[in-house]
């Protein structure tokens, strides 16, 4: 039997098996991710009332993109991501590095630092809502000033930062766990040789640790950014998009209360499809821009 005939036959047999193995995921993903997205793209050019929808035009996408609310929400979302991702990353790395030494009891600290991963968005937001309340929360009494009147969540200048704080705290556990795993996989002899070469702690960190954990950092950045862009629960529970729409992100614009999208599935689809494209472009930039910094060595 010729080699090509054998491999051709094997290829087709494997295709059958491959189809069987891919079918479960494929059907689910197709029906509940791809199909809705495609449908949403077409729904996005309709405006819906209480009982029916009218088709307007593809121009609806342009109108929506250029509208005040969308542009504002885009800026808020970008700001939110720019606050939560770098700070979350720095804090997570900082804590991981802090807890990376073999001293007695470090396990307890590690558990504490990971614990926020147990809090869901709803839980974390409710916690922070009570903490930041200017009348009954403790933070207000300690900080005074804006924290007291009108309150960190109520002042247009600080609201987004306050929501970010809640989000950063909630994601700290996740970042800590992943970065710790990355740190533990750095070969110790790299440090040894750097030490022997005369590098001090800081230089060891920048020349050895950072490059070696860069794949992990990329992973965390991607996840944190996605969470920032898709953040809804924390805004819904903490500020309802206010004050003065300063915490209305794109997702909140699509699903929040009292907004032009309320009750209008068509307009909602428009905004969420636009969000998808924004994420797409962002993902492209992230991978292009950041991937070159990532060291895949071994």
């Amino acid at each position, binding site marked *: 039997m010729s080699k090509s005939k054998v491999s051709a036959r094997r290829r087709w047999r494997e295709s059958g098996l491959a189809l069987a193995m891919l079918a479960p995921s494929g059907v689910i993903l197709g029906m509940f991710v791809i199909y809705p997205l495609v449908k949403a793209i077409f729904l996005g050019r*309709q*405006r*819906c*009332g*209480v*009982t029916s929808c*009218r088709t*307007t*035009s593809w121009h*609806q996408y342009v*109108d*929506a993109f*250029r*509208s*005040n*609310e969308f542009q504002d929400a885009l800026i808020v979302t970008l700001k939110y991501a720019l606050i939560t991702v770098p700070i979350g990353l720095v804090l997570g790395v900082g804590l991981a590095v802090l807890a990376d030494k073999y001293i007695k009891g470090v396990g307890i600290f590690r558990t504490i630092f990971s614990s926020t991963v147990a809090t869901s968005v709803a839980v974390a937001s409710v916690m922070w809502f009570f903490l930041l*309340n*200017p*009348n*009954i929360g403790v933070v207000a009494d300690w900080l005074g000033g804006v924290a*007291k*009147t*009108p*309150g960190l*969540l*109520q002042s247009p200048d600080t609201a987004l930062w306050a929501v970010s704080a809640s989000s950063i705290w909630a994601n700290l556990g996740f970042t800590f766990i992943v970065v710790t795993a990355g740190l533990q996989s750095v*070969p110790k*002899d*790299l440090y040894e040789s750097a030490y022997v070469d005369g590098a001090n702690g800081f230089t060891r960190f920048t*020349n*050895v640790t950072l*490059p070696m954990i860069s794949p992990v950092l990329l992973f965390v950045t991607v996840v944190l950014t996605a969470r920032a862009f898709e953040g809804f629960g924390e805004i819904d529970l*903490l*500020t*309802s998009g*206010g*004050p*003065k*729409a300063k915490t209305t992100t794109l997702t909140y614009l699509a699903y929040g*209360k*009292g*907004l*032009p*999208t*309320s*009750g*209008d599935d*068509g*307009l909602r689809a*428009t*905004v969420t499809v636009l969000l998808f494209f924004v994420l797409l472009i962002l993902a492209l*930039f992230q991978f*292009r*821009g950041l991937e*070159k*910094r990532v*060291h*895949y*060595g*071994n």
Partner: protein
Amino acid sequence: MTGTIRSTGRTRRDRHNRWAIPLLVVGGVLAAGCRSNESLSNAGIDRKPPVTTQPAATVPTPPPTSAAPPVTLAPGETLPPGETLPPATTAPQTTPTTATTMPPPTTVPTLLDALPKCDTTALDASSGTVDITFWHALSNVNGDTLQKLTDQYNASQTKVHVNLEFQGGYDENIDKYLQSDTGNRPDMVQMPEYMVQQMVDTKSLVPTQACAESAGTDLSQFLPSALEAYATQGVQWSMPFNVSVPVLFFLKPTFVRAGLDPDNPPQTLDDLLAASKQIVSSGAATYSVALDSDFDGGGGWYVEQWLAKGGNFYADNENGRAAPATRVLYDEAPGVGLLTYLKQLVDEGGAVYVGDNASGTDTLLKLADATAPAAMAVSTSASLGPVFAALGGGLIPGITADDVGVGFMPGPNGGLGALVGGASLYIVDKGNDAKAAAAWDFITYLDSAQSQSQFTADTGYIPLRQDALDLDPIKSKYASDARYKVAYDQLLGSADAPTSLGPVIGPLEQVRKVTAAAVADVLTGGDPQTALSKAAQAADDLIANYALANGG
């Protein structure tokens, strides 16, 4: 194999990256430079912008009305800011008129004829038990009380069995109902007061008027304001169930310290300003009134309340009840006067702005602030129970539940009159006469005098019918603590005029939100006319877009 520390072989990647930066810049410029200054609500709509709002000083033409004019202002006349009215002297109408006070539709043929019918005899005619589902949004104590009433009803007869389904909150309930098709809908649903027009437009209802007429139900004991709130275009669409109105909460010890009478809280806006100044200047409290810009509170709903108390319309076409509204009217003199007053209250009267009030409790909690408290706050009467409970537990050191005073929500010329808040009960048209009849039977039970007495005694809501007050438990409750009756008296005193019924607008929640933005603007230093004109423009757009989307 550890290899080099820094990554190698970047040349090929560099070539790909070369277009990343310029693309980013171009993208940024495009995104920044292409803001259209239009609202999202206009996306995709090709419509000539509506005629812009009238200039500030014009007096709106008095709307045609057959009812008696309210207390001291003729409809359409405005209260110039800063001037005071002679104190309100007229007594509240204590004898309510009969239920047939709906404005007779003059030119429109009876809408009721075109709507689904209701045959209440179908219930007796059916054999066996009729099962109906009721979607509601009442939680905790309110929900428990409703459950109790439902259980009593189910146990008391075998014709109808009601399945209560709690949906979470008003928002979830609305979402689910609007997104369901006929098969998934319940037989009865509770909807908040701002949903009237949208419910009408779902074309999914059996109007309760049809059932009331078929059964010959006596509605004479119902408070007209509560009933008519849910009537528009000549049809009674739903029946009120849980009724609340805003009232003024204040701390009596603070009043005493300021030299004010704790049994006589201010009722006119001018009195409120004077009392506020006195509280602050005497040092009795840091702030006088806590103001918010919640769209369900100070920013939206209360604006409607204040305009109604002053005898002004909020929207055209008699607040959207004679015919669907086409625009809002609050950017004219009455509205501007109102917001100018609020600004004055902050600037001169020591009022404090607590923000958007996303939690719904910030104004009340400001009274409990240990270091910089306010003395007064407007909040819904439904908060009475919770406030007393919280204070009874020592929320404010040194203050007990008895120290809280309750008064009418002050208005331009007195505190009497209020728009109903809360929710109403709708019968869903499922093409089944027996179910519609069953739903009507349950509604009459929930709205009966005894049920209302029970319901309002356990929750903070107000009885929607007069004869409920003669029955225990509410009778004893009002007798033992008159503060609970204040909300009822305020509602009872509503003038018999079209302006006393709130606006019926399709996108009312969204309109409230843009109004709230204007209030927030003014309370932080903005100019009332500018803020209101901008809000009115946005509101008019919302109304027009709604009409377009709903076959208007």
